[in-house]
C-alpha cells in the first residue's frame, strides 16, 4: 500500500472519534465538519514528511480545533495565530490530549454523533444518507450512486437533513442509562436499515450497493468496540456478518436472485461466518435475548447447514416463535410459516398465514410464500392467482422474474415445488 493509501485509511478510521469530539466542542455539525476537513488537509501535507502521529485521532482533533478557532479569530479581524506554530509544537499537547480523550466520554460522543443522524423526524433514507456523509465520511457522489439518485438530489437531501438536525436539540450532557439505551436502539435500527438498503439490491445495481453493507458492518463494529458488553450489538454485528457472508452466492451471473436452498455454499465467506458465530456465542452468555440475537441465531442455523436438507427447521421454527414474542409482526409470522411448512407441512403453514392476508395485502413476499405453499399442495389455480398478485407487487425486476419462474414451473413441471423461503 502506498503512503497516501495508508493516510487515507487512517483519516477515515479516525473520523468518527475526531468528528464526535469536535461536535461536542463546537456544538455545531457544520463547524465540526469544516474543522475536520481542514485538519485532514494538513495531515496530508504533514504526515508524509513527519510520519504518522502516535494517535491520529488526537492529532486531528487538536489541529481541527486550533484551525477553527483561528478561522473564527480571523473572521472577527483579530490577529491570527501563526498556523505553523499550531502544527509544529504538537507532540506534548498531543500526548496530553490523548490521555484526556481516554478519560473523557468519547464513547458517548460517538454514540451522540450517530444518534443525531437518527432523528425520528427524519425519513429513514435521510437518516442513512446523513450517517454515511457525516460518520462514514463518504462523498455525496458515492452516496448518490449507492442510492441510485443523482448527485444534486442527494446533496439536497443531506442539506435538508442537516438543517433539521441543527434545529433539533440533542443534549450534550453524558446520557443516563435509559437515554443511552434509547440511543442504542435508534442507532442499531439505522445501521440495520442501511445494511438492508445494500442487501436488497439485485441486478446491475447490486455491485455499487454492496458498499452500503460494508459501511453498515463497519459502523456496527465501531459501536461494538465502544460498548463491548451489549449483547444486542453483538447480535446485530453477527446478523450482518452472517447475511453478508452469503452475498457472493446470492445473485447469479445475470443478477437474478438465487434462493438460499439453491445457493452454492462453497461461495459463502467462511471468515465472516466464523466471526458471526463467535459473536453469537459471546452474546448468548449474557442471557439477555433480543430481536437481533434471535435473528442472528436463525441466520447461524442456515449457514451451519452443509446442505439445504440439513437445515434445522424445527429450531428455526422455535426461534421465530421467540422472535414473535419479542417483536410481534406479521412479517415475522410469515417467515415462521416457511419453517413450519418444512417441519409440519404446507397445510399447517397455510393455516398460519391465513390471518396475515389483511395486514400483508400489499406485501410481495406474502403472495410469493402463499403461492409456493398452494403449489406444494397441488392447488394450482389458487397458486397462480397468488403468484400473479406477487408479480404485481414486485418492487424489482429480479423479484418479478423469480416469481415468473415459479409460474413457468406450474405450467411445465408437474412435480410440486415452491419457493422455500420468503427471502434469500
Amino acid at each position: 500500500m502506498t503512503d497516501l493509501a495508508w493516510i487515507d485509511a487512517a483519516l477515515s478510521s479516525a473520523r468518527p472519534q475526531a468528528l464526535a469530539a469536535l461536535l461536542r466542542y463546537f456544538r455545531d455539525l457544520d463547524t465540526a465538519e469544516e474543522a475536520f476537513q481542514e485538519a485532514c488537509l494538513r495531515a496530508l501535507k504533514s504526515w508524509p514528511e513527519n510520519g504518522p502521529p502516535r494517535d491520529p485521532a488526537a492529532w486531528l482533533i487538536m489541529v481541527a480545533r486550533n484551525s477553527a478557532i483561528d478561522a473564527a479569530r480571523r473572521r472577527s479581524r483579530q490577529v491570527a495565530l501563526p498556523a505553523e506554530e499550531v502544527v509544529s509544537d504538537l507532540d506534548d499537547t498531543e500526548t496530553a490530549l490523548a490521555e484526556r480523550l481516554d478519560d473523557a466520554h468519547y464513547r458517548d460522543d460517538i454514540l451522540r454523533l450517530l444518534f443525531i443522524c437518527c432523528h425520528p423526524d427524519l425519513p429513514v433514507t435521510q437518516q442513512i444518507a446523513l450517517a454515511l456523509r457525516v460518520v462514514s465520511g463518504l462523498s455525496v457522489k458515492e452516496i448518490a450512486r449507492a442510492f441510485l439518485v443523482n448527485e444534486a438530489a442527494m446533496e439536497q437531501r443531506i442539506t435538508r437533513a442537516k438543517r433539521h438536525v441543527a434545529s433539533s436539540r440533542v443534549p450534550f450532557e453524558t446520557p443516563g442509562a435509559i437515554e443511552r439505551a434509547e440511543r442504542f436502539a435508534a442507532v442499531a435500527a439505522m445501521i440495520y436499515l442501511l445494511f438492508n438498503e445494500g442487501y436488497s439490491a439485485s441486478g446491475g445495481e447490486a455491485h455499487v450497493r454492496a458498499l452500503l453493507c460494508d459501511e453498515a458492518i463497519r459502523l456496527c463494529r465501531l459501536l461494538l468496540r465502544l460498548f463491548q458488553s451489549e449483547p444486542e450489538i453483538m447480535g446485530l454485528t453477527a446478523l450482518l456478518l452472517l447475511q453478508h457472508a452469503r452475498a457472493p452466492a446470492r445473485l447469479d451471473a445475470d443478477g437474478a436472485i438465487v434462493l438460499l436452498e439453491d445457493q452454492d455454499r462453497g461461495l459463502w465467506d467462511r471468515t465472516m461466518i466464523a466471526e458471526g458465530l463467535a459473536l453469537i456465542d459471546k452474546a448468548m452468555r449474557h442471557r439477555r435475548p433480543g430481536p437481533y440475537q434471535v435473528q442472528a441465531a436463525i441466520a447461524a442455523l442456515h449457514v451451519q447447514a452443509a446442505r439445504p436438507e440439513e437445515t434445522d427447521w424445527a429450531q428455526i421454527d422455535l426461534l421465530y416463535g421467540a422472535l414473535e414474542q419479542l417483536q410481534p409482526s406479521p412479517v415475522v409470522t410469515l417467515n415462521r410459516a416457511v419453517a413450519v411448512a418444512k417441519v409440519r407441512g404446507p397445510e399447517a403453514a397455510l393455516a398460519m398465514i391465513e390471518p396475515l392476508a389483511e395486514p400483508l395485502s400489499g406485501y410481495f413476499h406474502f403472495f410469493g410464500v402463499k403461492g409456493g405453499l398452494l403449489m406444494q399442495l397441488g392447488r394450482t389455480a389458487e397458486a397462480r392467482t397468488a403468484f400473479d398478485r406477487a408479480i404485481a407487487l414486485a418492487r424489482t425486476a429480479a423479484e418479478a422474474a423469480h416469481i415468473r419462474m415459479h409460474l413457468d414451473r406450474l405450467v411445465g413441471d408437474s412435480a410440486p415445488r415452491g419457493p422455500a423461503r420468503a427471502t434469500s
Partner: protein
Amino acid sequence: MQYAILCYHSEDVVCSWTKEEDAAVMTKLEAVMGGLAKVGKLGPVARLMPTTAATTLRKSQEPPVVLDGPFAETKEQLLGFYVVDCQALDEALEIARDLARCNPGGAYEIRPISYFQPGVAKT
C-alpha cells in the same frame, strides 16, 4: 532460538481495507512466509479475529470474571503472530522487516519464546 513476531496494528485501519486490499497484503505476506518455510524457519502463524470477538478472563480474583473485549484497550491491537526459528535477534528483525514491507503501519514486537508446544489440534 524461536521468536514470536507479534503483530500490532490499528484494527480500525485494517478492518477498513477492502477485500481486494486485504487479499493483496495477504498474497505478499504469503510470499515471504513461503520463503521462510522453504528454509525451515517458519513456525505456526495466526491471524486473530477483531477484538470485538474477544473475551477476557480476569483471574486476579477468585472466582475469575469474564469480560467482553480484549485485555487492554489500546490504540493498536494485537492482530496476529508468527513464530520463526532464527539464529539471533538480528535475523528475526530481518524477517520482521521483510514482513513490514508487505504490510506497513503498526508495529511488530519481537519476543524470544521460552517454552513452545506445537500442539496437536487440527484447525
